[in-house]
């Protein structure tokens, strides 16, 4: 099983030993990762019944928390997870374009090995949450955003450097009477321009190129990518749960390597209550924000302190990640 706890969505995937997806879930995180995760586990149990889980991998910005709550065998960063999934679905893939809710990344591979990557740094201009907001502004359901873009005959030019500029530019275009279709298509192009300028800066984009992440559902963006790159852009079958799928593949690989039984606490564990709490430590001038996860009065884990006073940590990388850094075969 792979779990991807992202800022916008929490995804769960259960795959069999051959990498085939038996069941997948895409839930909105809505700022409450623990709830989204336990809801997901309950739904998954209802769907698959008494299935035997041989390994669990977590990824995404909430991977550490998810790892603690589920007792995951392996915790992996989302770049490695996305690359693992893409390699499985499109063997020989050279470039991965990924746009999620709050971040976007580009990953370059050669001979099945990641050679370079970039993630957006300070700005979320080209991401799903920005598109959500603009769709809402224009009164279009986000699911139909792409169709609108494809219907446009004459896309208008929208400033792409910054989400704030893009929004004011859009409003001006609306006021001067451009059609919604043309504005939406212009926005897709601006977003793609922004993405390529920020992440692909002078880097060579080789085929096959694949486009994944929640925003890959938007056919308008996919078309804008094809136009800007002059290359075919493949949208893989499981584009929306690639992180979770990758985490599942990594867990599977980890199981094959170690042969150890899983440390997964089981689906029933999702019915327990989990509390998370943050406190400011006053031990020194650093005033670290210490996070704590508790279940039934017992502290499961603490982290966030620099000195190790609360977490008792020895290494600074999460132990599980330090242990298993073998690349995926």
């Amino acid at each position, binding site marked *: 099983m792979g779990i991807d706890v992202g800022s916008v969505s929490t995804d769960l995937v259960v795959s069999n030993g051959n990498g085939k997806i038996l069941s997948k879930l895409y839930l909105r995180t809505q700022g409450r990762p623990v709830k989204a995760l336990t809801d997901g586990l309950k739904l998954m149990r209802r769907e698959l019944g008494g299935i035997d889980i041989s390994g669990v991998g977590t990824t995404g*910005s909430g991977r*550490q928390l998810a790892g603690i709550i589920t007792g995951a065998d392996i915790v*992996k*960063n*989302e*770049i*490695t997870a996305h690359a693992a999934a893409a390699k499985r679905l499109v063997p020989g893939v050279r470039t991965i374009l990924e746009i999620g809710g709050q971040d976007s990344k580009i990953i370059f591979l050669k001979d099945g*090995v*990641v*050679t*370079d*990557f970039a*993630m957006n*740094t*300070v700005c979320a201009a080209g991401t799903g949450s920005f598109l959500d907001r603009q769709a809402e502004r224009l009164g279009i359901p986000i699911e139909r955003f792409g169709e609108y873009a494809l219907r446009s005959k004459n896309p208008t030019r929208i400033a792409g450097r910054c989400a704030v500029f893009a929004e004011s530019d859009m409003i001006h275009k609306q006021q001067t009477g451009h059609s919604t279709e043309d504005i939406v298509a212009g926005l897709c192009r601006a977003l793609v321009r922004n993405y390529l300028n920020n992440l692909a*800066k*002078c880097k060579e984009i080789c085929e096959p190129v694949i486009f994944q992440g929640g925003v890959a559902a938007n056919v308008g963006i996919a078309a804008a990518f094809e136009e800007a790159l002059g290359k075919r852009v493949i949208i893989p079958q499981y584009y929306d749960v690639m992180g979770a799928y990758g985490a599942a593949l990594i867990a599977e690989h980890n199981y094959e390597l170690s042969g150890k039984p899983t440390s997964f606490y089981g689906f029933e564990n999702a019915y327990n209550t989990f509390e998370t709490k943050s406190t400011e430590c006053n031990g*020194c*001038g*650093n*005033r*670290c*924000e210490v996070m704590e996860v508790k279940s039934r009065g017992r502290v499961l884990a603490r982290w966030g302190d*620099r000195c190790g006073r609360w977490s008792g940590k020895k*290494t*600074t*990388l999460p132990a599980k*990640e*330090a242990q298993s*850094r*073998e*690349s995926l075969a």
Partner: protein
Amino acid sequence: MSRLHDKDVTVGMPDGLMSFEHRRVWEKFFAALGVKTVSSGKTTNDIIRYGVSLCSNETCLPVKVLAGHAASLCGKADCIFVPRCMSVCKGEKSCPKLCGLPDVIRLSLKNKVPVTGVTVDLDTSVKESGKSLSALSETIGREKRSVESAFLRIVVPGLAAENSPNAFIPELNVEKEKPVIAVLGHPYMIFDELLSMELIKKLISAGYRVLTPYDIKRSVRRANARPFAGRSFYETGLDILGAFNVFRKMDIVAGMVYLTPFACGVDSIAAEFVERGIREEPRKPFLKLTVDEHSGESGFDTRLEAFLDMLPAGSLNEKRQSV
């Protein structure tokens, strides 16, 4: 040592910006004059927070942090020492922000404690320091002649010393069995545990050895600082570019990480040349990490972990493939 007045002055040394190399030189200078100094110590979150609240939003994070360090010395020192470091030798310039630093700090501290300093502009002439050395001699109560002599004897050669006083490993070929990650960046970024989010510690605990520009002799860094070798450029830019060109050709270097504070002017040029150079053979895995005021480390760690995953498989187990 002849004194001008009997008052014992304690000089506060804020431990930020060029303190990694320069502060140690200045401490020697004050020690030679028999003047007590007090350091602000390691950067803490309190220092960052305070510095951020004192400075204009436009300044870079390291300047804000220095202001926080200076402020933390109020009450512990009679004056705060912030040199106006414009150039440390011929043909090299300091970041323009270092040139205006004493003024920025003076304004940030709102005269709570006097800010004193020495102007250093060795690219123009050593004479540029004369007036400020006179003023310093008054403040610390030492004869002008001895202050000038200590400056010429200790500071002038010290600021452009061949060996960094803080090199990790003086010889590059020790501990051969461990693959190396080269960490590029300004000393006040990469060696500050808080600003660098413990980058070096994290790499070491992941099983790597770390080399920085300061493990290479200064003359070697200068000779390799393409495309600025032999030309006038920023001091830290020359350090970074020179080290990059040396590390790039070293087999033992498995990858490189460039740590930069958001909106750094010198890095905007140096990093561009590094990013172009990294695309030439022999190619090495490369990661540029930009940090600013955010205290959340997860984005930083995600990138670092993905970068380590990218390194040749087994690079941790001696059986490292040739890169």
